[in-house]
């Protein structure tokens, strides 16, 4: 059995003999070996790994390639090869050690086996967010919290611990290291001196920058893997038949479900094809368009209304509560929970209203419906967060003494209440719905696991966590615990109550969309809020590491003045002054990026054109092949006819037809 793809022997019995085949295989092998011998070690390993051969064949080719290479290198550069080989071994053992740190491997395998890849993508997303938070927790703890706890116990515990603190974050936690107010910006006298202000600033900045880089990298990788060259409906039978079957599902019932779904979808696509596509009249189109416009107006109106309500509620709370840090009144404290509860209720109810609204609209394809639903939900959630940020950055600093701690506590409360609502939502949304769907109203059926809604909830919570990081460095603790618990709750609810979604097309594109959403409104928004706080707002005078300064950014300015005077670090000051603070530098960089983008875009256009021409060429080659086959068959047929004719006539001489050109088929 030859391992190289052979052209099909479609010319009938004129295939090559066994000896010729062997020659061809040997020639191909030696070409491959000489190619491999010219590569570097690392590239050779990669190339051999991706050969579609059995393991023994690959080992043979590898040993041949290595022997060719060593015979070429007479002066054996043994040392560098040895070093690079040992580095590779170290890398391999680090990678295998990392395997042991993979958490939840068995659980994820079970979920993928029962519910398929698209539901698994939710849990993988959750795990990925968990990594961000664990990293943040570690660096904040090491660089900010531990120095503060060890060296500057400047906190005064006003009240003892009551249970309500876990929800509201005030009282016992008020001046603790959980919030901004628990840190002071003194320079810890040690060898070398440790500047808490700089540590606070740089730790948070470094974490946000690393997050941004990681998000951009994941987004571009995902986009590259999932980018489809040709747009257009890939809902045809070929794709569904050959590419959509999920091999990772191992549960018998789930496989039966998938088979039924596939059958239903194939039947649907057949019936769509058989019936004529009926074109809508102008009046019908106007009607649907006006319905769309009305639906959008309603959705935006709901969003704007919720934002206004939240803003005025916040202002009202600020006026009436006057929450001073010394109050012991439980009811006043509990009233601070009103705003988070209202926000979570809005986040729960308004998306349900949106799905009701979308029932009245008509979409050309179901994917448009999903994307429009996602857009509306994102607009709602981000506008709520936006109005909250506006309230925190504009109204709160004037009214409160230690306003950063207040903001940190508000974020803490929002996260806690969101978590409680998530648990309740799982209970009511999935468990009760399952009971209703199976016992009371059987026509509803078992609920499907709504991936989009759950992922958007995760993105919302993560945005809050990113916003809160500046105001409450230990907030990731809460987020980590919360994500852990949500993982197990969702998994349990999934296995008891839900079934996998029926329409699983294009799950990979949805993944890309979710990562893009995590980057664009979510991370960028949080980053801009923190950047605005650091750059322009006056920090509170009596608490926190930046007390007394005009803006927190002033610490960097004073630090650069300090290092300007130090010998040997003049270049750091030079970079800071002439590149980072210079607008001209940014204009130049932007201009260069625009030019490069334009070039790359032109290259892409050229490649698209090339693909189109190559496709046309394939079609033409197919037609050529058909034509040649036809001619060959005709010539053979005529040859046979002449044979039989000649045998009848007992004529031994070969008969040459000078008019052979007229025997060509007419349809050339």
């Amino acid at each position, binding site marked *: 059995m030859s391992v190289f793809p052979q052209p099909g022997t479609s010319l009938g019995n004129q295939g090559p003999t066994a000896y010729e085949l062997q020659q061809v295989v040997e020639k191909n092998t030696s070409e491959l070996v000489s190619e491999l011998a010219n590569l570097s070690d690392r590239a050779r*390993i990669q190339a051999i790994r991706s050969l579609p051969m059995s393991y023994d064949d690959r080992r043979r080719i590898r040993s041949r390639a290595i022997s060719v290479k060593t015979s070429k290198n007479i002066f054996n550069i043994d040392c560098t090869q040895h070093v690079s080989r040992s580095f590779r071994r170290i890398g391999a053992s680090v990678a295998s050690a990392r395997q042991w740190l993979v958490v939840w491997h068995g659980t994820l395998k079970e979920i993928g086996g029962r519910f398929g890849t698209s539901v698994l993508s939710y849990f993988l997303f959750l795990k990925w967010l968990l990594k961000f938070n664990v990293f943040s927790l570690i660096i904040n703890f090491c660089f900010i919290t531990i120095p503060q706890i060890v060296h500057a116990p400047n906190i005064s515990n006003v009240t003892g611990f009551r249970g309500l603190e876990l929800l509201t974050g005030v009282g016992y936690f008020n001046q603790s290291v959980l919030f901004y107010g628990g840190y002071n910006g003194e320079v810890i006298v040690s060898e070398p001196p440790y500047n808490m202000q700089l540590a606070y600033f740089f730790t948070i900045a470094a974490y946000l920058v690393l997050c941004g880089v990681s998000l951009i990298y994941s987004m571009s990788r995902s986009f590259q893997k999932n980018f489809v060259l040709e747009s257009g409906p890939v809902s*045809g039978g*070929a794709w569904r*038949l*050959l590419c959509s079957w999920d091999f990772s599902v191992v549960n018998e019932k789930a496989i039966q479900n998938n088979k039924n779904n596939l059958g239903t979808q194939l039947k649907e696509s057949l019936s769509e094809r058989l019936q004529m596509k009926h074109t809508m009249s102008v009046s019908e189109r106007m009607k649907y368009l006006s319905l769309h416009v009305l639906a959008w107006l309603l959705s935006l109106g709901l969003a704007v209304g919720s934002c206004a309500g939240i803003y005025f509620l916040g202002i009202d709370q600020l006026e009436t509560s006057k929450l001073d840090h010394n109050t012991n009144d439980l009811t006043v404290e509990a009233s601070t929970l009103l705003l988070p509860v209202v926000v979570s209720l809005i986040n729960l109810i308004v998306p349900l209203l949106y799905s009701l609204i979308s029932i009245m609209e008509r979409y050309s394809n179901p994917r448009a419906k999903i994307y429009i639903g996602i857009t509306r939900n994102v607009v709602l959630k981000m506008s709520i967060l936006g109005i909250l940020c506006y309230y925190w950055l504009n109204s709160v600093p004037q009214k409160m003494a230690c306003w950063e701690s207040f903001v940190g506590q508000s974020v803490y409360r929002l996260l806690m209440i969101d978590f409680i609502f998530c648990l309740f939502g799982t209970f009511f949304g999935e468990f009760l719905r399952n009971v209703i769907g199976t016992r009371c109203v059987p026509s509803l059926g078992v609920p499907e696991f709504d991936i989009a809604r759950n992922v958007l909830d995760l993105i919302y919570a993560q945005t809050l966590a990113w916003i809160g990081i500046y105001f409450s460095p230990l907030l990731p603790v809460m987020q980590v615990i919360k994500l852990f618990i949500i993982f197990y709750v969702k998994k349990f609810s999934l296995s008891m109550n839900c079934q996998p979604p029926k329409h699983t097309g294009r799950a990979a594109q949805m993944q890309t969309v979710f990562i893009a959403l995590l980057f664009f409104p979510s991370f960028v928004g949080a980053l801009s809020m923190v950047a605005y706080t650091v750059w322009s707002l006056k920090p509170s005078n009596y608490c926190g590491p930046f007390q007394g300064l005009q803006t927190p950014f002033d610490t960097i300015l004073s630090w650069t003045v300090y290092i300007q005077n130090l010998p040997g670090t003049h270049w750091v000051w030079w970079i800071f002054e002439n590149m980072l603070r210079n607008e001209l530098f940014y204009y130049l960089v932007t201009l260069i990026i625009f030019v490069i983008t334009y070039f790359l875009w032109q290259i892409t256009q050229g490649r698209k054109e090339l693909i189109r021409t190559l496709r046309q060429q394939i079609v033409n080659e197919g037609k050529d092949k058909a034509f040649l086959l036809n001619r060959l068959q005709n010539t053979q047929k005529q040859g046979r006819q002449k044979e039989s004719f000649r045998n009848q006539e007992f004529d031994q001489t070969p008969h040459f037809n000078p008019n052979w050109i007229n025997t060509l088929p007419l349809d050339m």
Partner: protein
Amino acid sequence: MNRSKHICLSLHCSLHGRYHELAPHLVPMDYTNDPDVKVPLALIVNMPELKENPFRNRIVESFSEDGQGNLSFNDFVDMFSVLSEMAPRELKAIYAFKIYDFNVDNYICKEDLEKTLNRLTKEELTPEEVVLVCEKAIEEADLDGDNKLSFADFENMISRAPDFLSTFHIRI
């Protein structure tokens, strides 16, 4: 040694454990002498990862050297490494093509598609619908007009289906 491909060394060891479990009397624990042992098809398709898969026989046959489904340990590792998450798309496409090519003629013809469809849907579709779906599939994917799908046609279709990398994946 180039033993670990797209899976790392610890997984390689656990694969050896799984392979040994399939036929404990046949597979030795000690592989240093590189024994020539092949586990037959009937034992391999009983693995929990493959048991319910509609294509289990074709998968095992495509990775075996003799085409009958008897896998040596190296073939076993090959199989799970191609089906793992990290195998490149081209490699997966080559083996997926082999799996769907039931009559092993290097083309996916109409009969191959009909067999695939029957495995995927059982009694849902009537025979006429089956024929219609297969014809439509070939019409859509066939670029060079020879009424069957060559590897190039198949690969072109795969490039338009980014989910393929994640669905053509068996976790072990």
